């Protein structure tokens, strides 16, 4: 069987570089995005929605509530569960208000979340209001609150790369289209939208790596659902084509680079070798399509997506073809005619 060669393309040449991880997520944003997931029943902002969560860790302040403050992780989101609440119920009101006075005096404490839909103790409410710290109540169990919040924050703080290109969902395959300015990326994207596919991002694509190892692409909210086409200007894809033409994010599975045809360049003709790009430690298949007059880039991208699907489901056309060819060559071979064995 033919050996498959693998080439790795340097991502630095393709991307605009890493974007700084966000300095923090504001508590307001976090609660707004997590409202449904966490089943938040009440959120008191206390004027502190601009406070920032700066990491992915979540703290249960049980030990601090019991009076042990060495190593109190005050910069993390504080989640109060049944343990904290039942301990608090066992002490006097005076002690409760002392303890919350002390806890809320720590600088940079982002917010409190009370789990299981329990009412926050009045002492907590008073101290939080005095210091401007938001308090939310979640209908979920404590462990679920912690898992969901930590997942959300890990996603927010995941390493990100920015690309100049377009991201589309083509037959369910996330295709990142790259290439130099004015080569026709947006036009190709528009063509694909016309053929029934969905766009995630035009011009600026953010790709991040999830803890599960997938690459996820999206774009900044302000330009989402828009596309810029030379001669037409900025278009709103959702208004023009409807909801079926857009999506918010998509796993990035295939990287396609469009470039002007370079006659000297040796483009892949067999499909036997595998070229990949290493993006944030994850390898994604990479193909280069040269632009030639009269060639429809978008239909080539469609076929590339289908071929990717076929490979994922176990059928590698180039390899199967070559194996048949080799078998035929072997039967045609007659050692006595050519002399050499």
């Amino acid at each position, binding site marked *: 069987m033919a050996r498959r060669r693998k080439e790795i393309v340097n991502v630095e040449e393709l991307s605009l570089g890493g974007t700084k991880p966000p300095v923090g997520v504001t508590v307001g944003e976090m609660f707004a995005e997590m409202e449904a997931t966490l089943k938040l029943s009440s959120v008191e902002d206390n004027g502190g929605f601009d406070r920032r969560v700066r990491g992915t860790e979540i703290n249960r302040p049980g030990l601090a509530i019991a009076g042990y403050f060495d190593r109190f992780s005050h910069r993390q989101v504080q989640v109060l569960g049944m343990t904290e609440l039942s301990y608090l119920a066992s002490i006097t009101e005076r002690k409760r208000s002392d303890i919350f006075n002390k806890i809320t005096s720590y600088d940079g404490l982002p917010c409190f979340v009370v789990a299981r839909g329990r009412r926050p103790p009045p002492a907590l409410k008073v101290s939080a209001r005095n210091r401007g710290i938001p308090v939310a109540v979640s209908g979920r169990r404590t462990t679920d609150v912690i898992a969901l919040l930590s997942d959300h924050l890990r996603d927010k703080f995941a390493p990100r790369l920015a690309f*100049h290109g377009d991201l589309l969902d083509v037959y369910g395959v996330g295709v990142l289209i790259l290439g130099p300015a004015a080569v026709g990326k947006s036009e190709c994207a528009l063509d694909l939208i016309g053929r029934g596919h969905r766009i995630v991002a035009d011009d600026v694509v953010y790709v991040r790596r999830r803890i599960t190892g997938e690459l996820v692409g999206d774009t900044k909210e*302000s*330009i989402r659902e828009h596309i810029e086409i030379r001669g037409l200007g900025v278009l709103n894809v959702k208004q023009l084509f409807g909801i079926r033409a857009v999506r918010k994010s998509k796993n990035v599975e295939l990287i396609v680079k469009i470039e002007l045809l370079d006659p000297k360049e040796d483009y892949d003709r067999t499909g036997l070798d595998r070229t990949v790009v290493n993006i944030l430690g994850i390898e994604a298949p990479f193909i280069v399509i040269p632009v030639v007059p009269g060639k429809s880039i978008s239909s080539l991208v469609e076929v590339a997506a289908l071929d990717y699907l076929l490979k994922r489901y176990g059928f590698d056309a180039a390899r199967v073809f070559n194996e048949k060819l080799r078998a035929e060559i072997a039967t045609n071979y007659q050692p006595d005619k050519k002399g050499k064995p």
Partner: protein
Amino acid sequence: MAAIRKKVTVQQKYGLHARPASSFVKLARVFEADIILEKNGERVNGKSIMGVMMLAVSRGETVYLEVDGPDRERACERLKSFLEDGTDE
């Protein structure tokens, strides 16, 4: 042959909204060099209008121009003065 990186304070009265952004991109495309515009660590291609508009740069904000290519000196100079002179506000 390293890229040039310059700090620029944008002077367009209403910031880089659609019109000045498109003039900036038009100017950037004249040059062969690769042009990156950066604000608060967010990097976009200076030849892409959506990218430049996405940065939503307002007057007085600091951005970085990163220019690399054969004509980088001239490209950087022209784009820098475009932003500093508040052209096309």
